[in-house]
């Protein structure tokens, strides 16, 4: 039962691709995914960001073959040989999705569920599962149902990490943990990722504390991919300008304004797009202050329900993204 095929270790990190994907749960209702295209590069830690109801969970359950799209293609696999994810044993044995609901037996000991995963996951590392549970202080002899929300999330984290799947997806599982547990989880994830490279997708609507883990970021909004690019490019994409309103307006030019805030004659405007050295020097010499826009701010601005000029600018600390469904 413990003899695993050697080949399991050598499977390369998986890439994933969605082509023109539509998912409809009801025939007349709004589609959960609306002609979505997305590429998740192999070997990266990718952040899938989106507000509640943006379609993140639906998208991720497609990658894991939990369901098939209403139309379009969902492909996963080693780079260069992508294939349909749905009901494909090669795909499902190499893709691990952990959801907040856990997908474990509620009325059984945690260890029972883990042994089912161990039986099926080719690269399962029982020691790692034990380490995660110990670090996050979960007693595996407890029934899953009897655990607190945070400890349940810890079980999901253990399943996701120990599976060592070439494509491992965490669908908001860490949201139930308290802050020290979340940081412990990030540390475990990074350490194991460094040692066993694979593709990891983390979905969240809380960005500040995990954005630094991302190499690639995709933002989903209303069932569509708003953007998908290297995290470092994204961090350099927003610029905020502060200074006299008319001067700011002159330097903003035709860039897309994300938010605008006024205080007397001073304006602070966050725009999409960067400034090259010359433009920057010109702006500074006109008395403007230039600053970057954090990923969290960029996300809030890009996915705001309506363009509200009263939104706090990028310089000020921004409240959590609005929690509405």
């Amino acid at each position, binding site marked *: 039962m413990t003899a695993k095929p050697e080949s399991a270790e050598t499977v390369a990190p998986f890439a994933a691709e969605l082509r023109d994907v539509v998912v409809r749960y009801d025939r007349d209702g709004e589609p959960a995914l609306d002609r979505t295209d997305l590429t998740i590069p192999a070997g990266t830690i990718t952040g899938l960001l989106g507000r509640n109801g943006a379609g993140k969970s639906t998208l991720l359950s497609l990658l894991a073959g939990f369901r098939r799209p209403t139309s379009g293609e969902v492909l996963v696999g080693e780079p260069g040989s992508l294939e349909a994810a749905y009901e494909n044993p090669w795909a499902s044995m190499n893709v691990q999705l952990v959801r907040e609901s856990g997908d474990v037996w509620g009325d059984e000991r945690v260890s029972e569920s883990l042994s089912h995963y161990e039986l099926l996951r080719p690269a399962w590392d029982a020691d790692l599962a034990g380490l995660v549970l110990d670090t996050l202080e979960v007693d595996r002899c407890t029934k899953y149902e009897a655990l607190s929300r945070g400890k349940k999330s810890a079980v999901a984290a253990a399943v996701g990490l120990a599976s060592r799947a070439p494509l491992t997806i965490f669908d908001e599982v860490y949201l139930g943990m308290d802050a020290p547990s979340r940081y412990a989880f*990030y540390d475990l994830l990074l350490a194991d990722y460094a040692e066993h490279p694979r593709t990891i997708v983390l979905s969240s609507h809380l960005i500040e504390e995990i954005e630094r*883990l991302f190499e690639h970021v995709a933002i989903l909004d209303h069932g569509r991919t708003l953007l998908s690019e290297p995290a470092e490019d994204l961090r350099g994409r927003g610029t905020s300008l502060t200074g006299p309103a008319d001067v700011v307006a002159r330097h903003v030019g035709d860039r897309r304004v994300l938010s605008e805030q006024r205080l007397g004659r001073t304006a602070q405007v966050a725009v999409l797009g960067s400034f090259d050295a010359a433009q920057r020097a010109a702006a500074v010499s006109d008395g403007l202050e230039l600053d970057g826009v954090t990923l969290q701010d960029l996300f809030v601005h890009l996915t705001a329900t309506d363009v509200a000029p009263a939104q706090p600018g990028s310089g000020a600390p921004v409240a959590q993204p609005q929690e509405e469904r």
Partner: protein
Amino acid sequence: MFDGPEPIYVQIADHLRAQVLSGELREEEQVMSTTQFATTFRINPATAAKAFNGLVDEGVLYKRRGVGMFVAPGAHETLLAANRAAYVAEVLDPALDRAEVLGIPLSTVLDHVRRRASAARPAAAQTSAPAQDPRPDEVTS
């Protein structure tokens, strides 16, 4: 650490340059691996690697195959020279501009500089003055 709005690899590179400049990292000293760096500061390893590779291209670090990354010989001097060259444009000019906005006459500024220079002279007999600037690369370029 590294939670400014600039790209993280830029911040990491700035941080390492500052460490070399201040002497915290000595020449030929081994720096943390990208993995160690990533796990210590909770940063994506690829991001850390991007910063390190940039510093290798700049000549601040060099790779020893199978061993790791080290501070390049002469890196301290190179960084000093670069920072000195940028000092006037990045530090002094903005300070003088500000003095002008505030209506502080140039003579007052010069008096202050002279007073500091005469107070510092005995202590700084053998070292060169510009190296005293504690964080010359604070200003973004």
